[in-house]
């Protein structure tokens, strides 16, 4: 799919140069590079707390969803806040260390999907010219698996890609 790129799994990590402390009911941060001082609102403070360890944006949303009942508008607000905080250099984006997974990202959106190495291989050969049987044969040639196992993996992967609009319904290519 032309508007989907593949890359290593990106994570939000707190900028290690940013100092922070609790202040009243919120969190106070200072970026020493600019001496900019930020007092986070409730949403931003929850995001900051959720990123005590590096996390994917979706994992941040999931963490907040465990604490709050989130509407789609809330989720949109969280994503915008994450973006604003990253633009203000409070977060840095880093690749998940030692991770074999791949990240599919729809360009110019916040849509993204983490896929395992088998699905990543299948994604790599789904080019619109190959049939499912072609993909099964490619999978068998690449990995030490039976045809039945390969066919199951291909069916699951194609269903996943279709479900998320990553490949067309009538055509197994992107």
């Amino acid at each position: 799919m032309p508007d989907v790129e593949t890359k290593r799994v990106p994570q939000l990590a707190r900028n290690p140069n940013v100092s922070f402390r609790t202040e009243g009911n919120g969190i106070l941060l200072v970026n020493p590079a600019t001496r900019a001082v930020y007092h986070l609102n409730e949403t931003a403070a929850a995001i900051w707390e959720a990123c005590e360890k590096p996390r994917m944006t979706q994992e941040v949303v999931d963490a907040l969803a465990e604490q709050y009942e989130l509407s789609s508008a809330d989720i949109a607000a969280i994503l915008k806040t994450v973006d604003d905080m990253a633009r203000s250099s409070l977060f840095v984006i880093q690749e998940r260390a030692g991770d074999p997974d791949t990240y599919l990202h729809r360009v110019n959106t916040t849509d993204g999907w983490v896929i395992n190495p088998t699905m990543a291989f299948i994604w790599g050969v789904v080019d619109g010219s190959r049939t499912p049987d072609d993909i099964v044969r490619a999978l068998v040639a690449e990995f030490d698996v039976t045809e039945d196992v390969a066919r199951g993996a291909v069916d699951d992967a194609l269903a996943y890609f279709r479900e998320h609009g990553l490949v067309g319904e009538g055509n197994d290519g992107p």
Partner: protein
Amino acid sequence: MIELQTPSLVEWLVTDRCNLRCRHCSTWRAGEQDESTTAEACALADRIAALRVFTVILSGGEPFIRDDVAEICGRLSSQGVSVLIPTNGCLVTPEAAARLVAAKPSSVQVSLDGPDAATHDAFRGVAGAFDGALRAVAALQDAGLAAVGVSTTVSALNVDKIPAIIDLAIARGVRALNLRLCMPCGRARQDYAAMVLTPRRYRRLLEDFVRWREELRGRIDLATVEPLLCLVDPELSRAGADFEGDDFSGCGAGKTGCCVWPNGDVSPCAYTDQFAGNVRRDDLGEIWRTSPVFRPYRRYADLVQGVCASCEHKRICAAGCKSRTYGLYGTVSRPDPMCWLAADHERDAAAGEGGGDA
């Protein structure tokens, strides 16, 4: 708006003494004041750390004129406080650099006000100051400090030489360069027209700064804490973001930071002589929380008045540098005298009152 229970930044003038005779500064004329002993300084360092202050700027005078500057630095850094030390560099011998680096400062900024000895030494008032500054940069680098920066005090005397200063800093392996404007206080207040930029020249400097910063990214980090940078910097315009609960943008004097003077007096900033208390007599945290001196610096409505009240940048700018305003007008409730938008407005208003004569 909430008020911070403790400052996030303390500028600590550890001495009035100085080995140079800078053209813009009158501190060296004051001579030796009743500065803190080492024991007093360590006690204050402990208190600052207990107040969870993020950053301390150990300044002066010339901080390296004190034999115990490394000890004070170590006392702070060992308790998690980030320590930044500005210096003219002339006293930073290899031995002094090694002692300081062992005390783990976050960064040291050596003053560099010209690309050559003639410019720098004329401004700093002592022959050899330029060579001393460059020797200090090398000594700190050799001692293993990664964060060696230079700081340039920008005045009408050197503003056109900044590109050459940047080139020199890069050639010397400096990672960061900080531009700070010559403030209208001390001798610069008396020699204002010759020393301080006009608002229009200041605007051009800030626009150049934004361009240089982008062009030089990866080679040297250019920084400035000029509050009016937000008027021309798209990055800062974005920074007034919706994720903030209470807004602490703009000048931090008295609002997020304060200054401790050599004799223990406390003021909103190193450039204001409004004293809120004295740490030899009172607790720094108590002074910060209770002194009425800080009130005008923290009330947004008091700061943003006149032409600022209708300005589109008011939320981020918050009327600019309060020390400049106080230094010139004796009040913080006026626009920053360097603001070209306010200057244009006042000029237009004056033209209107004058009947619109050409």
